[in-house]
């Protein structure tokens, strides 16, 4: 996991995000590497992870998190990680195949998101009371591209928010702001309003750089004296396979 990001946001294996709704937005770059960080963080802390894959396969996350020191296959066997494969459901929908096992794998229907929510609810309920959990949906905005109406996606997001208030669980998802879905601009305000923490990634305006991959802004919302206060921290970052380097804008080693 990325220690520098933990230090920036005030997280650690002893102080995990508590009942937070975290969303990652990226524009001009790909922010899904932060999902690997959260998976590794929770597993290393001995807490539970519910991973809903829509964009990438389980094997992808297994390899990526392996480099951060987390063994996803072993965690799955031990029951610390639960995987919900929405990619398979999408493939079955495309190939018009149905699996006799679970309802979700049979393909998409207008009740898919409701069924997914019920499944996540049951999974979070089954986690021991003294354990925290995190629900990770690797790309909620992809449901728009898959033909789900925006109202259903927003309702699902609100239900995930409800789970974080009623259970010791957090929710994490990614929103690609330069995606092609028409309703994307409508989705972002909902995420922004009801989320408690935004990790905003932007590529450099000047283009690709070997030493600086983009800007990371951590926006944490809290209540102080009845007012909603935003705490913003901006850094530039360089991500490698195993580490995330954060530095103040303009202070990259390549520049100094």
């Amino acid at each position, binding site marked *: 996991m990325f220690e520098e990001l933990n230090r920036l946001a005030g997280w650690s294996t002893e102080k995990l995000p508590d009942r937070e709704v975290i969303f990652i937005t990226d524009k001009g770059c790909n922010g899904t590497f932060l999902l690997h960080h959260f998976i590794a963080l929770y597993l290393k802390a001995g807490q539970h992870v519910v991973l809903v894959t829509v964009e990438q396969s389980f094997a992808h996350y297994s390899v990526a998190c392996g480099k951060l020191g987390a063994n996803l296959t072993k965690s799955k066997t031990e029951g610390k990680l639960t995987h919900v494969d929405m990619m398979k459901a999408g493939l079955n929908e495309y190939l018009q195949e149905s699996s006799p096992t679970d309802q979700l794998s049979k393909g998409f229907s207008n009740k898919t998101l409701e069924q997914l929510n019920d499944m996540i609810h049951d999974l979070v309920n089954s986690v021991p009371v003294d354990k925290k959990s995190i629900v990770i949906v690797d790309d909620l905005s992809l449901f728009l591209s898959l033909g789900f109406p925006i109202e259903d996606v927003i*309702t699902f997001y609100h239900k995930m928010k409800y789970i974080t208030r009623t259970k010791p669980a957090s929710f994490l998802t990614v929103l690609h702001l330069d995606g092609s879905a028409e309703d994307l601009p409508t989705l972002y305000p909902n995420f922004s309003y009801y989320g408690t923490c935004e990790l905003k990634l932007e590529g450099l305006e000047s283009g690709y750089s070997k030493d600086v991959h983009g800007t990371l802004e951590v926006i944490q919302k809290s209540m102080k*004296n*009845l007012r*909603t206060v935003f705490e913003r921290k901006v850094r530039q970052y360089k991500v490698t396979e195993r580490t995330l380097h954060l530095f103040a804008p303009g202070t990259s080693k390549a520049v100094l």
Partner: protein
Amino acid sequence: MLQKLVGKLKPNPNEGSILIIKDSATIPDFSLLYSMFFNKAALYKSSHVILFEHTEEDFFKVNKGIIPYQVTVHECYHYQYMTKLQLQVKLQRIFCSFPAEEIIICFDSLNPWIQVASASSVIQTLCQLQNLPCSIEILAVIHTDLISESVNLQFSKIVGTTLCMDKKPSLDLDTSKLVCNGKSLKPSGKILFFIESFLVSTDFKLETKTCLSQSTTQISQQNEKNVASPPCIATFDISTKQEEILQKNLLVLPYTKMNESGSIIYEADYDDDLDYDDPDEDLEF
């Protein structure tokens, strides 16, 4: 002006008032709503809070037992799991439980209700509450960036006072304060515009400072389209009376005669040398 709104007289029965606070994702705020509600609630016999975005636990954490009088809290936090009909039934039960006396109702947000039901259904219900045979005041928050412009417009038609916090405070103001752009419709038809910065203390007292002087606009009930008429803006009277318009319409201009084809018929004088030959006769078309 905000202080005046807090101390505003109770509305008459069947003429309930609605105050909406509009915020956005960049400037979300509940402090003004709670400040107005808790200060006004002392004047009413019955105070109700309907929570869509906060739990009852959050609400009591906010007021920390400061409020001495009874506030009835109705939690609808699990609205996401309700159908439109279920939510409607729940809200009807809440509204039916209101005593037939002075009531103040506070909605922490109308957006979840709009999401489950529809904007028109919410507006209809608010209008019905407004017309209850008792003195009723409704306070609510709407997140403007989660609703369309048409829905925004629909709400502005039924709302008496709108307080907008969707504009960022300017740099020369104290950044600990928020800026509120207000619009209040008076019973006489005047609309009062004001901009004030405000700060809500932990005991919900409101401190305000006027940023811009108030301006008023008189709404003419006859001319709701607000079209500027030339006679009003000219320094001399160029309006025409009915008789003058009639005479103008009856006037026929010289050399103009209407026939069936609409062409101009010219009758030549004695001295005119008219040539009836075709000038293009030698051209081969």
